[in-house]
């Protein structure tokens, strides 16, 4: 009886102490202003247009501010302001994760963190429970609070890279431009980072936050001084619901097992898993025939297990191969080549300008800038991974534009062609192409994928035209081979 009473009192105290009052929250929030430079893929020797915007950040530790990657992408100069502090502090990006839209900022001036309070990170909130979103969205200049409930917990595409999907929590609290990067709180703890949503004319009251497992994964990955990115099994799976299929694969008629339907040869499962293998368990967790496992009391997709892994970790799989049971381990030891299809940041466009012909490696950014018409370029982009086109073309080099000159005036028909070889040497990367073009044959014979029409350039003519073309088109450098690491932000 007394125990129950004490318990009640305890809960009462908790409930009173729990929600962080807006006054307290102010010590943990900041408004981030980003002056960014967007690369220009059509005139890649120029620095690109300056733009920018603002978002929200929150104190995650005694000397770090967390926000979304997309708030600080392509940043040239970052300033951060705290509540009740007139000063503008200069920040730099310490870690940025484009695959899960998170970033950590640090400050040259340690006084930024004076009078700040790091926020504690909580767990996954229950459906229909209340959450509050704090930040600096449009509609005013000062701290804003909106409140709603947890609507859905699901695996969703993160728009920032557009190729990555992770756990994502949908809430109906208003999330607006400027909220990005800001904390979503429940009982005084961070349960998510507000990051994307739908505009009102598409769906109402649908906003998304990055949940704490993803936040923890990011922090842990970055804790060794380098962000390695999410690991990936790099396989396709197919549910095993058809009785004939189960029989043919040697399975009983229960609800366990998914079939491996593809194995990416550049991925971590290559050499370990084969098409036709049946995955029965992952890290000891039984896999049901629709690809779900039970993880911490929740039924989630099998991929969640891989989501929790880091570089050099492994995952154990219990499989059936040709009717025989086997135990295998996939080690996450390599990067996967699908980043070509992802939105790219912190990069100046790679290119080679030769004879007024502009060659660039195919990427999502390039395709967005040019809106290519060629079905072949579309195909090489869309099926780069699923058809393993990266094996023959690790970089798909496209003749994206021509700067008209007498030298190349008859060569327009080759635009949007994909380079296959130069003087008989297969071209796999831009660097390889630069090496080939640095040689000095009488003619450069460039062959394109799928056609036997050669594009012929005479070395003498190319050299004679170089100055003329550079001057006419204001070209500064005639190549950027894209080897430089992500650009560091000024102010450091």
């Amino acid at each position, binding site marked *: 009886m007394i125990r129950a009473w004490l318990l009640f009192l305890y809960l009462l105290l908790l409930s009173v102490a729990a929600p962080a009052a807006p006054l307290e929250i102010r010590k943990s929030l900041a408004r981030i202003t980003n002056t960014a430079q*967007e690369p220009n893929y*059509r005139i890649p020797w120029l620095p690109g*247009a300056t*733009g*920018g*915007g*603002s978002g929200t950040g929150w104190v995650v530790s005694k000397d770090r501010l967390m926000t979304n990657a997309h*708030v600080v992408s392509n940043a040239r100069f970052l300033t951060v302001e705290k509540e009740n502090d007139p000063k503008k502090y200069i920040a730099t990006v310490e870690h940025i994760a484009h695959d899960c839209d998170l970033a950590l900022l640090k400050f040259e001036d340690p006084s930024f963190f004076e009078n700040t309070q790091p926020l504690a990170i909580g767990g996954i909130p229950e459906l229909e429970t209340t959450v509050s979103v704090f930040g600096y969205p*449009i509609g005013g200049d000062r701290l804003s609070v909106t409140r709603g409930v947890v609507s859905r917990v699901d695996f969703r595409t993160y*728009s920032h890279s557009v190729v*990555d*999907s992770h756990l994502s929590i949908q809430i109906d609290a208003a999330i*607006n*431009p*400027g909220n*990005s990067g800001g904390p979503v709180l429940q009982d005084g703890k961070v349960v998510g980072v507000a990051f994307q*949503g*739908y*505009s009102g004319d*598409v769906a109402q009251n649908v*906003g998304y936050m990055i949940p704490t497992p993803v936040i923890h994964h990011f922090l842990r990955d970055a804790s060794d001084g380098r962000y390695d990115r999410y690991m990936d099994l790099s396989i396709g799976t*197919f549910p*095993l*619901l*058809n*009785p*004939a*299929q189960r029989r043919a694969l040697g399975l009983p008629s229960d609800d366990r097992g998914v079939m491996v*339907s*593809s194995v990416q040869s550049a991925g971590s499962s290559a050499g370990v898993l084969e*098409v*036709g293998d049946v995955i029965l368990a992952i890290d000891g967790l039984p896999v049901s025939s629709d690809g779900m496992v039970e993880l911490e009391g929740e039924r989630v997709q099998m991929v969640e297990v891989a989501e929790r892994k880091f570089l050099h970790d492994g995952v154990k799989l219990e499989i059936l191969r040709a009717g025989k049971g086997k135990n295998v381990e996939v080690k996450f030891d390599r990067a996967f080549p*699908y980043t070509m*299809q992802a*939105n790219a940041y912190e990069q100046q466009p790679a290119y080679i300008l030769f004879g007024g012909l502009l060659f660039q490696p195919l990427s*999502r950014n390039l*395709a*967005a*800038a040019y*809106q290519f018409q*060629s*079905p*072949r370029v*579309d*195909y090489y982009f*869309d099926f780069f*991974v*699923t*058809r393993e086109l990266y094996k023959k073309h690790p970089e798909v080099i496209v003749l994206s534009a021509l700067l008209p000159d007498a030298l190349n005036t008859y060569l*327009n*028909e*080759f635009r949007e062609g994909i380079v296959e070889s130069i003087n008989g040497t297969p071209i796999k990367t831009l660097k390889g192409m630069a090496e080939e073009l640095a040689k000095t044959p009488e*003619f450069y*014979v460039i062959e394109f994928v*799928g056609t*036997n*029409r050669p594009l*012929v*350039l*005479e070395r003498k003519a190319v050299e004679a035209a170089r100055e003329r073309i550079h001057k006419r088109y204001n070209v500064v450098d005639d190549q950027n081979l894209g080897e430089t690491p992500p650009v560091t932000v000024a102010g450091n």
Partner: protein
Amino acid sequence: MRLRILAFVSITAFASAAEQPQGQPSPAGQPPAAGQPSVPLPPAPSPPAPGKPSAPAQPGEQPAVPLPPGSPPSQPSVPPGSAQPGVPKSPGAASGATAAAAPVPVKAEDAPRVVRVNVTTQAWDFSRPWGKRAPFTRRAVGAILPGKRVLVSAELVANANYLEFESAEGSNRTPASVLAVDYESNLALLKGDDDEFLTSFKPLDLTEAKVGDTLHIWQLETTGVVLATQGPMTIAEVSRYAMDDSSFLVYRATAALQFRDSSFNLPVLKEGKLVGMLVRYDNPSNSAEIVPSPVIEHFLKDAEQQPYEGFPRTGIVYSPTRDPQLRRFVGLAGKHTGGVLVTDLVKDSPAEQAGIKKGDVVLALDGQAIDQDGHYLDPTYGKLSFTHLVSTRRFHGDTVKLKLLRNGEVSEAEIKVSHRDVASYVIEPYVLDRAPKFFILGGLVLQELSRQYLKEFGKDWEKRAPQELVYFDRYQSDLFKSGPRKLVILNRVLPMASTVGYEELHHLVVQKINGIALQSLEDVPNALANAADGIHKLEFDSEPRVIFLDARTIAAEEAALVQNYRLPATKRLGD
């Protein structure tokens, strides 16, 4: 649904990204930033037909639709025999005729040299290959030729159920039938079942026209009066025809045509003689596309004997040599003017068999010198693609003589040219007057891929049809050099008990059944006989790669499958 990244109070536009499933995004359609140069003209498509250069996309060249007669394909069929007064104008059909170019009635004694041709068409539904689409009727004006025969376009009679001739004023009709049809040149020759029907009509003679000549496009008023719209012939060139895979001579004229009934195709005359058949008209540019008399003559001559053979080709794929750097590279500089570079040869083509090689330069054909762009000088038409000398001046089985440059030496070669059979394509460019083949295996609908199949996705099929299949069709000449003969695809699944778990599968290429590689749909029954332990194994060239079906369940369910989905048949193979 579009997901917007709501981060910035942004000076630049919001970064918006289309939601895509992981691993297979297509390029996000982001509008170019302000101040960017406009997108240059699209590149020339890869050479489709052997011996024909890839035609660069011409600005403003629209594949205009023939003047519709007021009953578009989606409408129910007009019962034959009903007059069509007051047919509502089809959208966009009315052209803005100026007073100066107004059509005029033709002198009474020149008519009647034409007859109305009404055709009720019913195409097969390639997406549900056991049935046909709704029938519809199109009406055109046909040219009467000697021998009581009538010339119309092939498009008019494709998949025809019922054809008839109707006198110009609409009072008299007789059924008709097709004597010969050529879809590549878009021509068809008809004759009436009642031989007497055309007795009182006067046939038209054929003649050629040149750029600058005044042409008369004939239409019919409901009363039977012929209305002639005149305009100058502006272009004579070799250009791609409707079936997309062949190019022939075409006449282009400018005339302000007005909408009239029965205008699916129209005869075009000069000084009272037939110069061609109008098959396309573009309203905004008032531009008429006409299948010209040299092509018609070839068609008619060929049709005199059975079997009809078709327009021949060499199988040479070539590149112009205008660029001086290319000329120096292949050794053409200084010594020779003109010539085209052989860049590829169609597999098993006449040119390949004659020993023509990649890297050869074709300098002349049948004594006619070929310039750097692939043109010879025609006495009537001026500069014209040399392919005309092969396709239209020669017949299937004829021999052409080539003057070649190979490794700096000039030599002669002979090619016995032939028509390329549509069945020789892995993915056929058209399947007309033929029922689509199919095989339903327990609910899995298997078919052969053809462009006709892809066109079921509508006018915009190149964007709407499964992109991989569009890619395979477009580049089949370089993708399938070592087989298979045809691509067998799983169109869709009609759910039954035997197909549980597979309902979502569609548009997959089936490579093998029970370990047997499929060269065409005909191989399926044989492959099914090879089942191990009563289980069929199907292998695809993409995910899920392999599925299994229970042969016994399939057999037990066949009657239910037919009944549930009201299938008239579960297969249709070979003719």
